[in-house]
């Protein structure tokens, strides 16, 4: 038992301010979004705001553009995440090997760089490095005899580019999470297992994997949430284009709300996104976080 019961006033004193703050900045705007979503609400025609019931929701649910954006978001997650886990696991296992400690410390520090980079800057860097004419990537590809590739202007390539930068930025995260997991394996158990078998994947599967599960679950949850939120990097790299080829869900809602000015429809889209997010995080979080108390 490491918790005590306290007076109601004490409880309110400790918790009240942050609950009030999150209510005021989180819940009140949300209720306003629900109100907006039930109206025809266009920023350019504010005189014509009128109640239209669930029409915006009906539009969203049958709107192929919305579901395509959702599909692209999950396609990105479905391609990038397995690659991040595979590469991340490889890097973690490599760093977990004994020896070469200086070089490994250096590697660990450089793994911090991609994660820390401002997401918007990643997109800008992408523009500079992958420019068809001035970009260094096409120059490097030229050295091995590959013709210049139109990275940003071609729909498929642009999507591949988004995947590439997502992998660049988040593989280090997966690697460090899994490395942290590997260090929790008791050294005696690991050494005993290595005496038993020479095959590294047997050790991985039966000895190390159980210790990696919490980390892997965390990665799964956070990457899902962050992909649903992903905006900055794609906005600065492609603005969702060419066409709608890289328009992920948050870019699409931003376009409808702030570039097409249809706040009513955008709010309905946002509410549906929120519901999907809450269902997913309910599912996920219960798997992962240990309960308070």
């Amino acid at each position, binding site marked *: 038992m490491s918790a005590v019961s306290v007076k109601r006033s*004490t409880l309110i004193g400790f918790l009240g301010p942050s609950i009030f703050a999150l209510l005021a900045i*989180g819940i009140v*705007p949300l209720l306003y979004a629900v109100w907006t979503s039930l109206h025809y609400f266009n920023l350019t025609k504010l005189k014509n705001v009128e109640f239209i019931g669930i029409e915006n929701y009906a539009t969203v649910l049958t709107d192929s553009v919305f579901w395509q954006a959702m599909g692209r978001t999950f396609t990105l997650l479905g391609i990038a995440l397995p690659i991040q886990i595979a590469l991340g696991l490889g890097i973690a296992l490599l760093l977990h090997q004994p020896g070469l400690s200086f070089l490994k410390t250096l590697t660990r520090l450089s793994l911090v760089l991609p994660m820390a980079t401002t997401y918007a800057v990643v997109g800008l*860097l992408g523009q500079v490095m992958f420019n068809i004419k001035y970009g260094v990537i096409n120059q490097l590809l030229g050295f091995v005899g590959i013709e210049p590739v139109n990275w940003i202007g071609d729909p498929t390539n642009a999507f591949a580019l988004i995947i590439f930068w997502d992998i660049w930025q988040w593989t280090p995260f997966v690697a460090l999470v899994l490395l942290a997991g590997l260090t929790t394996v008791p050294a005696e158990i690991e050494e005993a297992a290595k005496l038993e078998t020479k095959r590294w994947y047997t050790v991985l599967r039966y000895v190390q994997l159980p210790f990696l599960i919490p980390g892997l679950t965390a990665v799964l949850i956070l990457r899902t949430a962050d992909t649903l939120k992903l905006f900055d990097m794609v906005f600065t790299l492609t603005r969702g284009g060419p066409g709608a080829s890289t328009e992920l869900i948050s870019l699409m809602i931003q376009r409808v709300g702030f570039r097409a000015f249809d706040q009513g429809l955008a709010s309905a889209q946002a509410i549906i996104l929120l519901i999907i997010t809450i269902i997913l995080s309910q599912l996920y979080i219960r798997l992962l976080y240990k309960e308070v108390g």
Partner: protein
Amino acid sequence: MKINRAMPGTHNRMGMQILLLLLIITFCVFPFYWMVTTSLKTQLLALKSPPVWLFEPTFQNYTEVLTKDGVAKTLINSLIVAVSTTMLAITLGCPAAYALARFEFRGKRDLWFWFITNRMVSPIVLALPFFLIVRKIGLLDTHLVLILIYLTFNLPIVIWICTDQFRSVPFELNEAAMLEGASPFRIFRSICLPLAMPGVAVSAIFSFIFSWNELMYALVLTRNSAKTAPAMAVSFMEGYNLPYGKIMATSTLIVIPVIIFSLIASKQLVRGLTMGAVK
């Protein structure tokens, strides 16, 4: 280990390891190298095709963006917003984290779950109504708006990391202080908070980094006077002849403080990014 070293092929394996490690380092660091070198090129040089690797560096881009284009002001805006929201998040979040770690009350689990859900919500969901509300009450383009809305992600971070930290403070200290007749606030303020400082510091660093890096809210809620540095970097992207050197100089200025902070906190980085789910 000694047996391993004597085995044939060990040299090859060692060489292979070194090669792989160098590859990983290059992969992580190269974009930075390219960002910094591009920021030191003149526009003429930056638009050379194929790109130039060796050249005489110039700080022209930095002096220009800082003095002429107003990047200095946006960096100050970013700093004001990030520091204020971090301080506010710590002030509000620490007592809440302490209550979650130490007090027994009904609905604790639900409250905690609600805090977690805030981490998952996409900013676009709040950006739309926040924009409309803020526009109505005339607070568009102010520091205050960003400071407040950044609490939606900073407060959960502070609460999670600090709850964990408070739980690791020995409970016997609480008991001893209670026997002495100390009030709950006194125990929190004078005994537990000082001992939880490492966690508080880590959550402050994270809160600062996330706020400093944020783009979408800044894009939607600011225009000129409260514009942050990432929003400024994006506004260079308009038009046909992109000023690559200037964009990369601004980017470098944005990224450097974050890198420094992250390297300082690199030991706790995993814990912070996973919200304490992985130690």
